[in-house]
């Protein structure tokens, strides 16, 4: 059966309300940026000890999620799973939009965002950061080409090849993002080989959660049919990814606990008296892991879209918390400058950090940018299949 794609009408009150709401968030973010850049970073909670704060948490969260959002397209083109094929376009779109939102935050939190051109022209090829800039730009190009091949009938035959390149590229991209931490030799919180694969698994979960929410919302708000087959399949997949993230988290932390030199930072994160331990257990593990899994796998909630939506939201909140613990918690713990010695004065202690409202507004603004991009593009280009009813997505399905 041929899939028919169609723009959304985008003339309803709800559509305009959504755009207006997101617009307000974006304006607020721009105001926050002006405030931070005009005054300097002293108006933020960041310092010379916590040099990356809330903006980096949101930025890396979105960048990680972006590569994961491409999964649905990859499963269809690389692993040739028919069920996912009609959703490939949307998958590519969500992926690009999330990346744009994340990069916007990253750039606007620079000390000198006006020097973006320097970042684009001066490359230190030894720097993983510079490589990331190349990887991000390349991702835009590759996914854009991939989308074009899916849209353009004459090019359809190449789309699975393009999908394969996009898939490979995104794996490298997430590895690159994870490796940003791998190069920080003196920071014990990041001293784990498992960081890079963990970031890949995290990207699967966060990206899919975004995708599910956007898919369900757009079908509901445009009254298009969305069958249980698709919803359940995506829900199950999300459950598997969330479980995998928890597995990696467990391996990482258990491994570190056994390494004597990293036991200090592990105890600080897991069992310390600081906010990070509460965030870890209540936020990341329970709220962002166990509850979503229960919502997804509880037999009574099967095919329940409200609970799947809630589970996806919780996975995202848990994801932000996880990145907060990694990024901020990892910096808050002092570096071991004098092994075998205790520093009495001049350095050390747990660094304090209280995110300012402006930092949070910038982070939320990045999410809003991603969502508004999706909202407009599904209005102007045919990204969404007219129907994802069970008989469309799975012709052999017997109800």
């Amino acid at each position, binding site marked *: 059966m041929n899939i028919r794609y169609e723009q959304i009408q985008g003339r309803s009150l709800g559509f305009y309300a959504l755009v207006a709401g997101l617009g307000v968030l974006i304006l607020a973010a721009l105001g926050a940026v002006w405030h931070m*850049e005009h*005054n*300097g*970073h*002293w*108006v933020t909670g*960041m*310092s*010379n*000890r*916590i*040099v*990356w704060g809330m903006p980096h948490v949101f930025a890396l969260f979105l960048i990680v999620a972006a590569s994961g959002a491409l999964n649905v397209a990859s499963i269809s083109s690389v692993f040739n799973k028919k069920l996912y094929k009609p959703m490939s376009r949307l998958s590519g779109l969500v992926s690009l939009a999330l990346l744009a939102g994340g990069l916007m935050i990253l750039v606007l939190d*620079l*000390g*000198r*965002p006006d*020097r*973006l051109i*320097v*970042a684009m022209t*001066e*490359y*230190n090829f*030894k*720097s*993983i*950061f*510079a490589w990331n*800039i190349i990887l991000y730009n390349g991702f835009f190009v590759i996914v854009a080409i991939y989308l074009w091949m899916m849209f353009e009938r004459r090019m359809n035959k190449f789309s699975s090849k393009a999908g394969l390149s996009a898939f490979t590229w995104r794996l490298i991209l997430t590895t690159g993002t994870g490796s*940003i931490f791998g*190069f*920080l*030799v*003196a*920071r014990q919180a990041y001293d784990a080989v498992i960081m890079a694969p963990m970031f890949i698994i995290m990207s699967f979960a966060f990206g899919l959660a975004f995708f599910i929410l956007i898919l369900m919302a757009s079908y509901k708000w445009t009254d298009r049919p969305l069958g249980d087959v698709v919803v359940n399949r995506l829900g199950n997949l999300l459950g598997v990814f969330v479980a995998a993230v928890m597995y990696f988290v467990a391996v990482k932390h258990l491994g570190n606990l056994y390494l004597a030199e990293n036991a200090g930072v592990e105890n600080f994160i897991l069992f310390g008296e600081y906010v990070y331990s509460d965030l870890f257990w209540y936020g990341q593990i329970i709220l962002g892991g166990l509850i979503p899994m229960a919502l997804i796998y509880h037999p009574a909630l099967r095919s329940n879209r409200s609970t799947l939506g809630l589970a996806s939201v919780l996975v995202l909140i848990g994801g932000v918390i996880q990145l907060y613990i990694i990024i901020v918690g990892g*910096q808050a713990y002092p*570096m071991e*400058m*004098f*092994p*075998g*010695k*205790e*520093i*009495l*004065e*001049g*350095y050390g202690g747990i*660094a*304090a950090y209280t995110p300012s409202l402006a930092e949070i507004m910038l982070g939320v603004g990045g999410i809003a940018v991603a969502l508004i991009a999706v909202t407009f593009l599904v209005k102007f280009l045919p990204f969404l299949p007219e129907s994802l009813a069970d008989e469309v997505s799975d012709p052999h399905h017997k109800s």
Partner: protein
Amino acid sequence: MSKTLNRRDFIKTTTATTASVATIASGITLTTFAANANENPVTNEKRWGMLIDTNRLTEANIDGMVTACKKEHGWGSEAHSTGDQKSNWIRKLKVKDKATGKVTSLPLMCQHCEEPPCVDVCPTNASMKREDGIVLVDRHLCIGCRYCMMACPYDARSFVHEDLTDQKEDMPRGKGTVESCTLCVHKVDKGEAPACVASVNSDAVIFGDLYDANSKINQTLKKVQSAQIRADLNLNTGVRYSGI
């Protein structure tokens, strides 16, 4: 900013430094040019370093070094920044040996690593190492990403969190960029010792060319036992300590 130093001023006020700074900016290697430009050539035949004898250095000496550095470069009096936000190029550290209970005070600044992690991670080449081992930030290339601060094992770098006034002529600084100890490159290039070293005025802190077999620092290092902080990281620091 009451005094904005643009690139040209920066070139005027410094000498050999600028040559290598401009080098990196244009992507052409002009080290030989740098060597000709000054009677104190910047070459890799030299490696500037410092040896700090913590047994002989009093706490007052260390405070004096910090004050001298502040005075020379003008950091630390940022009006709005809180404690951890203020710039800090050199600080006094007190450490206690867990086994012996011995307490040592020492000054800690950029260690001018031979394999500097800050330079490796910097995306734009703003962080760079001169041929003679001095590690600097070109504040015209720095985009303020702060990755170098994440990478430095010695917490030696500061981010300028606000607009600055009353800048020192030899040391242009700027909001939104990263800075750290320059080993007083503007003085070293004129054949003078760094401000902190001069402030101590005794052999408790020796500055010089680590490679030069006739230099006091080289000869002392051959005699006394010295250490690098976090030697296990193999960064081969230019700043060495004895007595820790």
